[in-house]
């Protein structure tokens, strides 16, 4: 595979994003969607995994690019969510349209990068575009959410940079392929891991996520909760094989804590969008915990989560919400089931508890929705369904999952019918955002050093 084909979607998306600022022609946008999706599908389905250095430099100096099976799932989820959002909200706003193109370009560039500093630049670009998308429209509440996101994100990325330069001063290389042969210090890796955990939406560390995802407009929250949270997770997927054993265990424990904490907070929340935002922290925690099994399992989980979450965030009719909820719980034959099978293999008891919790809080989302069908959501639903054609079914676990999910849904429904529970208090400073989180971060750093 040549570098030109692999890098062409970045250039195409950036080019069309710049063009869209000046013109509002509809045919141009459809031309762009068709061109980019053809190009990316060609890369996804006809190219074999490859690693090369851009510009044919030596790997010590140049930027290494790598396309492999984990990138496949991340890029596939990015493409489906992006195309469905863009096609559905075609007449929305031309400025936001070009921002969506830039978001696609930077996320695509992230999902093929295999270099510590290149990952920093693309993650920073992604967050910069997210700030603009959240704060656009001069709504004070949204701007406040974006500002909180900015503070936490810039501090996390400063940590990331510091870890990167420590690793570089020890080894003299930045590409992750070359770092795998070196002996790395846990002190430097810890800074990188902390930053990526903050970016990947872990409960307790990512205070920004709940406000940003629940306040912003529907297409923005679909894009952010669907694909932009995958940015930090992708960094974790690439970094995880380099970590020493102790840090690996720490990451998995943090992920499991997030899976349960986010679920419990989501159950006590009232507004549907806030429930979904807490649910994102819970699901990203599962994806991080799945890294202990294999990076591919985590990538598959991220794929299933992003399609389902963007369906749920669209809040467009009972049908799409039901498909998204069933996939998120893990009911066969939707994609969530195959992702949950890996989770069950890694943590047999905990996975059933998570299924129970997920179905408990997802019941509340159906209140006030009508039966409605939207043509652009069939793409997401089709992607969720189509994975059953090339994945193996597991035997007995289907019945377990079905029984637990039914029990959870009934319990959630009954509890909400009988008692109106208030939302939980912010023990972790989720609202205050900046102060508590940073202290937690600093204390964790000290604990890790000792």
């Amino acid at each position, binding site marked *: 595979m040549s570098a030109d084909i692999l890098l062409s979607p970045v250039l195409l998306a950036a080019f069309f994003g710049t063009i869209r600022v000046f013109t509002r022609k509809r045919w141009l946008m459809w031309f762009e969607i068709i061109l980019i999706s053809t190009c990316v599908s060609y890369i996804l389905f006809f190219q074999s995994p490859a690693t090369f250095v851009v510009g044919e430099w030596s790997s010590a*100096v140049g930027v290494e690019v790598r396309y492999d099976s984990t990138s496949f799932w991340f890029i596939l989820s990015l493409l489906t969510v992006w195309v469905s959002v863009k096609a559905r909200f075609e007449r929305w706003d031309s400025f936001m349209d070009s921002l969506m193109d830039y978001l696609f370009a930077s996320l695509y560039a992230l999902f093929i990068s295999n270099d510590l*500093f290149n990952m*920093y*630049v693309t993650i*920073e*670009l992604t967050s*910069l575009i997210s*700030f*603009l998308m959240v*704060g656009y429209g*001069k709504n*004070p*509440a949204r*701007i*406040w959410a*974006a*500002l909180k996101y*900015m*503070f936490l994100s*810039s*501090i996390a990325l*400063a940590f990331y*940079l*510091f870890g*990167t*330069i*420590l690793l*570089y*001063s020890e080894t003299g290389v*930045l590409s992750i392929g070359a770092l795998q042969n070196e002996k790395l210090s846990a002190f430097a890796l810890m800074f990188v891991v902390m930053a990526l955990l903050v970016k990947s939406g872990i409960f307790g560390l990512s205070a920004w996520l709940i406000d940003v995802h629940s306040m912003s407009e529907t297409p923005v929250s679909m894009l952010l909760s669907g694909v932009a949270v995958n940015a930090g997770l992708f960094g974790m997927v690439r970094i995880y094989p380099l970590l020493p054993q102790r840090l690996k265990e720490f990451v998995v424990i943090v992920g499991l804590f997030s899976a349960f904490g986010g679920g419990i907070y989501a159950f006590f929340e009232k507004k549907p969008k806030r429930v979904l935002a807490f649910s994102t922290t819970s699901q990203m925690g599962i994806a991080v915990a799945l890294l202990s099994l294999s990076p591919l399992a985590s990538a598959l989980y991220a794929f299933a989560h992003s399609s389902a979450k963007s369906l749920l965030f669209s809040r467009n009719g009972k049908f799409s919400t039901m498909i998204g909820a069933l996939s998120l719980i893990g009911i066969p034959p939707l994609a969530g089931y195959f992702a949950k099978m890996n989770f069950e293999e890694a943590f047999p008891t905990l996975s059933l508890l998570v299924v129970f919790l997920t179905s408990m809080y997802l019941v509340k989302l159906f209140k006030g929705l009508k039966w409605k069908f939207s043509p652009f959501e069939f793409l997401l639903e089709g992607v969720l369904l189509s994975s059953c054609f090339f994945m193996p079914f597991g035997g007995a676990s289907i019945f377990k999952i079905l029984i637990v999910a039914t029990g959870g849904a009934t319990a959630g429904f009954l509890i909400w019918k009988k008692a109106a529970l208030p939302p939980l208090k912010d023990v972790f400073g989720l*609202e*205050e955002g*900046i*102060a508590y989180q*940073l*202290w937690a971060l*600093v204390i964790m750093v000290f604990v890790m050093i000792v």
Partner: protein
Amino acid sequence: MNAEVFFSIVIMAIGITIVAIKRDLMVKLIGVGIMETGVTLSFVVLGYNGKLPPLLTLPVERVDPLPQALIITSIVVGFAISALSLVFVLYLSSVYHTTDAVKLKKRIKKDER
């Protein structure tokens, strides 16, 4: 760990402390800037090894130019982000006439209801 890296960690800690303790959004932004300066210092210090500057091609032993090239990129990105956050703070202060984080949070919550 050499003394210079320790010094840059101290600067980063000062920046974080300012962001966490102070209530004024402008002061918080300055804290973020101080923290990024600490990171920049660590890049410069770790790239320098007491040799000649990288522009001179005659001597064989030179300072490693890569960290300096990297930190230029991150300074530019940091500038873009701080400019954008200043615009956001400007807008919030023009609506609510304050830059105090706690007051802003209360008034925004009040407006939502």
